[in-house]
């Protein structure tokens, strides 16, 4: 119960001011395309040089929690996912915004974020020693199977048909091979210097999601100007809360999936939202509504990506191993004050450790309050005329892609992928499975190679990848997932053929 003892420290005037500043600043940074949580936290590190360790970490903790949630704003309103965590949010969230329900989508996303986020931080507080063992249990073979499990999601995710979904997944897998291979040092498909480092995931996200949208707006020309002004419906916070309570399945699956997957070093944050979205869709009684502006999609995705915040810090705080890029930046924030994460942190600096964790808890609540406050205003973005909107989204996309690593190369990559995606979308392909391939490809590949090298030197590949409780469990889930998708596909085909026959 140490954390209650240190709760007072969060509310000392300067600390609370920093918490407030970090939360509001984090929401704005998070809503800016291209500024991922990692970048936002890195930008704030220099400010902590002049603060006490406790205060510095309060600022960083608050910024981390609220940037993750802030990413939902641009994902819903502009269809630009600010970070991989927000991909799943765009699928239903942007559809809702287009129907004038932007306020509702934003309110739901902030409420779901707060619920998921608080659950995640509570896990961090109460179960850290247990979770640390769990985080270490995932070796190369398990991460490989986990990535394969992700691949099985590809077919059923937001596409006209399973085949098209798989095909765009394959394009993503191929794009992922571009660049220097980190393990073997080989060069693959580098035709241009800007591809030397591979395809940057943030630049790719912006290109694949935002650019086709801009092109579509331009393609409509002037004919439809003014005719498409969307009426933005007002939506009360109370209704949003009721809606959230009516969707316990989405909230529960999102929170739990996010917490479990967020824990796994190196994989978690990127795919938590997508996996939660897919699972919720499979278990939901209203499957057909997903992808068309269904509230469950937003709730599951946002609950998952904020639930992952707390557990993702477990490897850092207990083992001193940063499990995600953001955790690596936070490690720098700790080291600069001479604090080593691990037992040293909890034994010798409990005030720093617990105040930091508490600030994330309070930060979740503050983030939710501010988010709800601006949701109604922000949703009016949908009323902006399309011609203006196209220009704004295009400008933000270029800015976002450039700011990732101050490189024009990323802007070219974004533009090329965006134009390519515009044409693919015309043929019923969709960006989400492509991005999933892009994310999962390197995880599956590097863990397979690494596991293979370990296996060759020790027990042999077959027993390394196919034996052991966790391996067998993951393989079983993969098989179940494939079987389920196949069964659903067959069933829906039978129904359609029947209907066609009747017609």
């Amino acid at each position, binding site marked *: 119960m140490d954390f209650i003892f240190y709760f007072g420290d969060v509310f000392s005037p300067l600390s609370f001011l920093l918490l407030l500043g970090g939360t509001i600043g984090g929401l704005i940074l998070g809503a800016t395309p291209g500024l991922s949580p*990692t*970048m936002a936290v*890195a930008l704030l*590190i*220099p400010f902590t*040089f002049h603060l006490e360790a406790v205060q510095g970490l309060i600022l960083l903790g608050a910024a981390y929690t609220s940037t993750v949630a802030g990413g939902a704003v641009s994902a819903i309103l502009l269809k630009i996912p600010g970070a991989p965590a927000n991909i799943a949010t765009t699928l239903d969230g942007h559809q809702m915004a287009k129907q004038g329900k932007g306020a509702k989508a934003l309110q739901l996303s902030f409420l779901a974020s707060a619920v998921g986020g608080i659950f995640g931080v509570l896990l961090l507080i109460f179960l850290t020693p247990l979770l640390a063992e769990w985080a*270490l*249990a995932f*070796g*190369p073979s398990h991460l490989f199977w986990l990535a394969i499990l992700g691949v099985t999601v590809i077919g059923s995710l937001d596409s006209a048909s399973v085949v098209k979904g798989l095909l765009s997944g394959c394009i993503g897998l191929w794009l992922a091979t571009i*660049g*220097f291979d*980190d*393990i*073997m*040092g080989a*060069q693959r498909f580098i035709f241009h*210097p800007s591809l*030397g*480092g*591979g395809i*940057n995931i943030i630049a790719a996200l912006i290109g694949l999601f935002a650019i086709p949208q801009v092109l579509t707006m331009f393609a409509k020309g002037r004919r439809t100007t003014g005719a498409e002004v969307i009426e933005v419906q007002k939506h009360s916070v109370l209704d949003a809360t009721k809606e959230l309570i009516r969707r316990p399945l989405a909230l529960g699956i999102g929170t739990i999936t996010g917490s479990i997957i967020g824990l796994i*070093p*190196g994989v978690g944050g990127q795919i938590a939202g997508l996996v939660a979205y897919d699972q919720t869709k499979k278990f939901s009684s209203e499957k057909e509504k997903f992808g068309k502006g269904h509230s469950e999609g937003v709730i599951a995705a946002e609950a998952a990506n904020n639930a992952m915040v707390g557990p993702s810090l477990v*490897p850092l705080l207990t*083992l*001193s*191993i*940063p499990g995600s*890029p953001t955790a*690596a*930046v*936070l*490690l*720098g924030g700790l*080291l*600069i*004050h*001479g604090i*080593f*994460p*691990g*037992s*040293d942190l909890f034994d010798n600096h409990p005030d720093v450790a617990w105040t930091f964790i508490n600030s994330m808890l309070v930060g979740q609540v503050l983030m939710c309050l501010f988010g709800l406050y601006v949701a109604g205003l922000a949703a009016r973005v949908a009323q902006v005329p399309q011609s203006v909107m196209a220009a704004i989204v295009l400008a933000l996309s270029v800015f976002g892609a450039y700011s990732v*690593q*101050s*490189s024009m190369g990323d802007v070219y990559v974004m533009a090329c992928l965006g134009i390519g995606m515009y044409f693919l979308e015309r043929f019923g392909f969709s960006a989400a499975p492509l991005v999933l391939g892009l994310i999962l490809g*390197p995880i599956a590949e*590097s863990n397979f190679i*690494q596991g293979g*090298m*370990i296996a*060759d*030197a*020790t027990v042999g590949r077959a027993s390394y990848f196919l034996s052991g409780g966790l391996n067998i469990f993951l393989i079983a889930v993969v098989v179940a997932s494939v079987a389920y998708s196949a069964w659903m596909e067959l069933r829906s085909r039978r129904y359609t053929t029947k209907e066609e026959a009747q017609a």
Partner: protein
Amino acid sequence: MRKLITGAAMTLMGLAGAALAEEYPERPIMMMVSYGAGGATDFQARIVTMTAGNEDALGMPIAIINKPGAGGRVGWNWFATQADPDGYTLAAYNVPHFIAQSIKGGVQYSSDSFEPIANWGADPAVFVVAADSPFNSMADVVAHAKENPGKLTFSGAGLFVGHHIAALQIEKAAGVKMAYIPTKGGGAAAMKAVIAGEVMGGVNNLSDAFRAQAAGNVRILGVADLARSEFLPDVPTMQEQGLEVDNSSVNFRGVMVPKGTPQEVIDQLAATVPEMFANPRVAKKMQAGGSPMHIMTRDEVKAMWAAREQTLKELLAGL
């Protein structure tokens, strides 16, 4: 008219040249780090440049820009081919990484593409094992490797980086074959593999291993350097344990500029930057973060680069 314009332009250029020599630097300076934000190189670069704006240093702040990717190749390729050699674009170097990469080929730089300014840190590679490992010294490791050739797995951060060089040197010195497992995701992923027991040992940075040992997760068996580290006075070097491993794998970090930067700018930087590194505030922060400092002047770095190039060419020739 044309003559007039040409004349004016020439005068302006002359003025600019004179101003450059006298008033450098007159605007903030950029320093490129070829690794991501939060990594050891980025973290140290931010600390050692934090006093750049002081009057006794450069009088202008240094802003860090990250260009990560492909083990540093992306950033250094950019620096060698696209950075302006005007003294306002600096970069952090990591030796032996960029020299080893240029020897292996496939990149657009070599040690001739850059002019060193000064060195700030030296992070030796160490050999770590999990806290519950049966190995208690390098002799145990070598003995196990001799009995089981090619079966002793040990991790490190990728190929042709300091860890890999240290691994090659240990194998060569002991005359054994072991299984080096390069991980994706840098030293942190390699350390996780050791702690989780996925591999039997690992090569890692002294600064990271020092923290992990303090947390009780690993034990450090040997340091791949010529002398013991002040952070780890009890851990013997490889040479003390009978393995002829020199300091070729020590990760030297410092500042460089692209070839073609005006000589007067290089001279001015070479004079001021080592003093900036020696600032007590910098030393205190570096000490607190567990990052060993090792300040070297331009001439010393030049000699170190040349020596490293020589050793690495011999070591990597057999691969």
